[in-house]
């Protein structure tokens, strides 16, 4: 479904007087995510996980390599063509507060993608939104509440509902649970496991917390300083992990 080949990303530090500095953020990242499987990217802060996500989403261009999603090279697509990609690939961002317009209500937030892809009438949209709210276990009376008046966990549920509204095949979770406390994390992980069954989803989980990845994913890729350090299939067990990976497991 999603195939990345030899992705490299270089940030050039453009300054007039000092030497040109270029920092390699990602180097030779290749992986292949098959339909129905889920993959996790683990790594410390600054390992290049979020940059990789932005490249997969087509928000940034990579210097080298290609991202092929369902047979289409994402980086050769124009703005309007990317829209069709986002029908099948959705994302839940790191910080739920900043990824939703603070002036919107829950209803406004969730209906935005529905309006973009389908031509439903108003009351049909409302039904869909209510269904999605119950799918992410939010009560109906939150429908017309301002997004800023919800708790962090509720906001993240709204973000998940918004991403699911177009029935994607791949859902990217970029540190989606990091800002939540342990109990709510556990609740949302349970919810995500249920949704995976219900909607036949694949996840691409980006996290510095390996436990979340172990729960949700079939494959793990461990990134360090922009290169793939380790990669495991969870059913085969984790064999010969590198030292830094062990350190992360302990934490």
């Amino acid at each position, binding site marked *: 479904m999603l195939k990345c080949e030899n992705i490299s990303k270089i940030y050039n530090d453009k300054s007039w007087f000092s030497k040109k500095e270029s920092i390699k953020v990602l180097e030779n990242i290749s992986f292949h995510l098959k339909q129905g499987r889920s993959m996790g990217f683990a790594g410390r802060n600054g390992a290049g996980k979020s940059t990789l996500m932005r490249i997969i989403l087509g928000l940034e261009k990579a210097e080298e390599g290609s991202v092929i999603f369902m047979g289409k090279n994402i980086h050769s697509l124009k*703005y309007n063509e990317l829209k069709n990609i*986002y029908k099948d690939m959705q994302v839940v961002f790191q910080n739920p507060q*900043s990824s939703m*317009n*603070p002036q919107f209500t829950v209803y406004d937030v969730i209906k*935005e*993608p529905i309006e*973009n*892809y389908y031509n439903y009438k108003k009351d049909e949209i409302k039904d869909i939104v209510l269904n999605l709210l119950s799918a992410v276990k939010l009560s109906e009376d939150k429908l017309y509440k301002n997004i800023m008046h919800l708790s962090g966990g509720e906001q993240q549920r709204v973000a998940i509902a918004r991403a699911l509204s177009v029935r994607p095949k791949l859902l990217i979770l970029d540190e989606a649970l990091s800002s939540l406390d342990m109990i709510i994390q556990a609740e949302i992980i349970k919810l995500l496991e249920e949704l995976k069954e219900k909607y036949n989803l694949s996840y691409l989980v980006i996290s510095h917390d390996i436990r979340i990845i172990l729960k949700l994913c079939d494959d793990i890729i461990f990134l360090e300083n922009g290169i793939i350090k380790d990669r495991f299939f969870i059913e085969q067990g984790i064999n010969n992990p590198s030292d830094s990976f062990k350190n992360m497991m302990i934490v």
Partner: protein
Amino acid sequence: MKDKGLIILFSILALIILSALFAPFIAPYSPYEVDITNKFAPVTSSHILGTDHLGRDVFSRIIYGTRMSLISILATIFLVLLFSLIVGSIAGFRGGLFDSILMRICDVFLTFPTFILALFFIGVLGVGLVNVIIAIALTHWAWYARIVRSIVLETKQKNYVTAAKCLGSSRLKIILKHIMPKVLSQVIILATLDLGHMMLHVAGLSFLGLGVQAPTAEWGVMINDAAPYIREHPELMLYPGICIFITVAVFNSIGEKLRDIYEAAQYSRESEI
């Protein structure tokens, strides 16, 4: 709306707007009815503010003048916002060469003193109210365009705009739904602060005989008409002057109050995050 000052200001504004809307019902005489035998009539019960050099009722002329002033500044502000919102949001959203070219054009407009530039445009376009409106709009839009651009640039970086892109929203939809509400709320406050200033411009140009033309009831024209008789009847200049003063002051104070409220709301929202 617990602010007492704001309530008072809005009721004065409502009074001004109502007198403009219902001018024919409020004014006791036609503003153009000349009665040369009764010129410079003193304040009496039949002529509340007396009559001018042609015997026209001053009170009626002032009421009708409200219409002219409000229409002219509303048209001006509409043109200014239309221009600056289009230019500013395109420049901010597209960026690159487009942005640079548009902003250099803005720079050119900003270098000239506004009144001189307005005089120049009237010189080219000719005398008249419509031309005055166009001239004032042309001299003010650049400043607004820059502000719009900077707000667009700031909002464009927000995560929710990136998120909207990933939800398949078109560029136009992102501008209209996510960026414009923020731009408008700030620009409208600025515009309210500027309304008084623009009104002075219109009245000033009319006073110079470049804007609204003579028989029309307009405050600037009335001051101009009364100017030759300043020694004998200074009150004829005073009445429209007070009207201009009150209206400008009301607009400025409302603008300042709105700005304070907006900033307080912005601050509390940011501290919430």
